[in-house]
């Protein structure tokens, strides 16, 4: 619980976190509709969510680079508790972000989305995936700056070609079927399924996001000093 609170306090203490997590994503609300679909901001929000998760995971990298992780490993606390507390704190912040964004969407766009519950679950699972992705990504780097620099480029391109930053309809069908290999693809895919009311496809997106989250979490949770 101490680490959980510490992670929350540390995350909220950074002004840039507040800006990226709680202010910037709401700019996505004002992006207009896709042609024959949902407001594009709902998909574009995925980019902010991804960067939010990455900024939050900075604490874990800093713990490693400042050798705090070595001190924690000698404390009477397991690595599982340590990582679990941090990740839960990050998830809580992103859940708050998702909830506020979903509510804001409801109030701004009204009944454009048929089922806001499905949307919230989609965002929740997407957040789990983004946190795991950030954890996994950061586990390959010792310094946060290098990690961030590379992540900015890779995440932007990933969001661009997976339909988060640009509507999926822009891409030809052959490419669209291949970009599903990217984890971010499953947010716009789920959004389209929600818009079309195809529950099976929505659940499919949920499962893929969850499996992706699991894989990335398992890869990223390996203890590194």
């Amino acid at each position, binding site marked *: 619980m101490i680490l959980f609170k510490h992670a929350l306090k540390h995350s909220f203490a950074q002004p840039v976190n507040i800006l990226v997590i709680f202010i910037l994503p709401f700019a996505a609300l004002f992006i207009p509709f896709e042609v024959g679909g949902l407001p594009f901001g709902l998909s574009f929000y995925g980019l902010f969510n991804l960067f939010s998760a990455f900024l939050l995971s900075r604490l874990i990298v800093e713990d490693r680079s400042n050798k705090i992780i070595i001190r924690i490993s000698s404390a009477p606390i397991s690595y599982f508790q340590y990582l679990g507390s941090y990740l839960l704190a990050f998830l809580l912040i992103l859940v708050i972000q998702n909830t506020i964004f979903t509510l804001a969407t409801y109030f701004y766009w009204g009944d454009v989305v048929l089922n806001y519950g499905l949307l919230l679950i989609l965002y929740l699972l997407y957040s789990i995936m983004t946190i795991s992705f950030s954890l996994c990504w950061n586990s390959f780097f010792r310094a946060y700056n290098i990690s961030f620099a590379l992540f900015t480029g890779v995440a932007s391109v990933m969001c661009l070609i997976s339909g988060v930053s640009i509507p999926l309809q822009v891409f030809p069908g052959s490419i669209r*079927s*291949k970009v*599903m*290999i990217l984890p971010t693809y499953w947010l716009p895919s789920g959004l389209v399924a929600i818009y079309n009311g195809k529950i099976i496809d929505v659940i*499919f997106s949920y*499962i*893929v996001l969850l*499996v*992706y989250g*699991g*894989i990335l979490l*398992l*890869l990223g*949770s*390996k203890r590194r000093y």
Partner: protein
Amino acid sequence: MLKKPFKIRPEMIYLLIMVIQLLLLLSVIWPVFNSTVFLLYLIIVFSMVLRWRIPIKPGYMLIDQTIFILISFFYPTVMFYLFIFAYYFSYKKKLLYLLPTILVGIMIPTGIIYYVLILQAIFSGIILYLWERESNTNKEIIDHLRQHIYELESLQSRLLSEYQYTEQISRLTERQRIAEILHDNLGHELTAAHLSLKAYKALLDSGQLNRAEETFIKAQERLENGLKQLKESVSHLEPVYETGLDKLKYLCESFIYPVYFTHKGDLLKLKTYIWQLILMSVKEALTNIAKYARPDMVNISLEVTDYIARLVIENDGLKNSEIRQDEMQGKGLRYMRRRLEAINGSLSIQIEDTFKLIIIIPIPSGR
């Protein structure tokens, strides 16, 4: 801090080949890529990553394999996923678990590529398994050798430290022994011969030739006897035992707490090595008392019978300290026990109101 040298291990190569196998699978399913194929691919990746991170019995992988086999009856593309399981099972030396995969290959004909994938997976898995087995055997041998070296080193250092002490004791004992032999045997004879020769000269001067000749013959006999005794003494040199007792008394007197020492029986029966053991044991015990206990009294008693020497070192320091028995079973006592056991002796500890160390040393009969 010393950096560990990088060494390629079989499990690292296993992971690398697993990644290659998964990429190979991706390339195989790429032409028919769709969301279902991709989800199944993700599930198999998840399954493998889970087993990499968390040790799960290979038997549980049969559940995953069965699910994929069942799906492959309705969706033959999924058959190509099975070689990942073949690789896993081969590496884990569970070749029997591959039977369903082979049977499915017979039941659903898919072409040569299926068998090629399965064969390469089995082959690489078995090779890695053999490598790992050899590596583990080598590790065990190295660990065993390291432990052996460590034990030898500690024993060597112990022996070296004891060697100096033994040498000192031996030298003093030898010196004392020679001095006594010279005094007890040769000294008397030489003195008597010297006096006889003086008497001979006095008798010669007084003109008593007969008596002088008798005295001279006696002096000659004394000298011959002395010479004989010298030869006997040299050939039957015996150690002097009192040195050990002196040393023991000195240890008791110089200890920081008052020590009451008693002895019973014929101490002359104790050979030098027994004295040495007794002294070592007393020294170790007194050091332990000084370290761990705060006694009001320390009793040392040495009892010698025809067959054994019984040394009891007792102190009442336990009631004043919280030291437990297991804490007192340190290296010193362990080494002491080992030394005693080497000569068929024994060491036992009794903890009641007092802490009692009882040492029994057998005395070999005859010379």
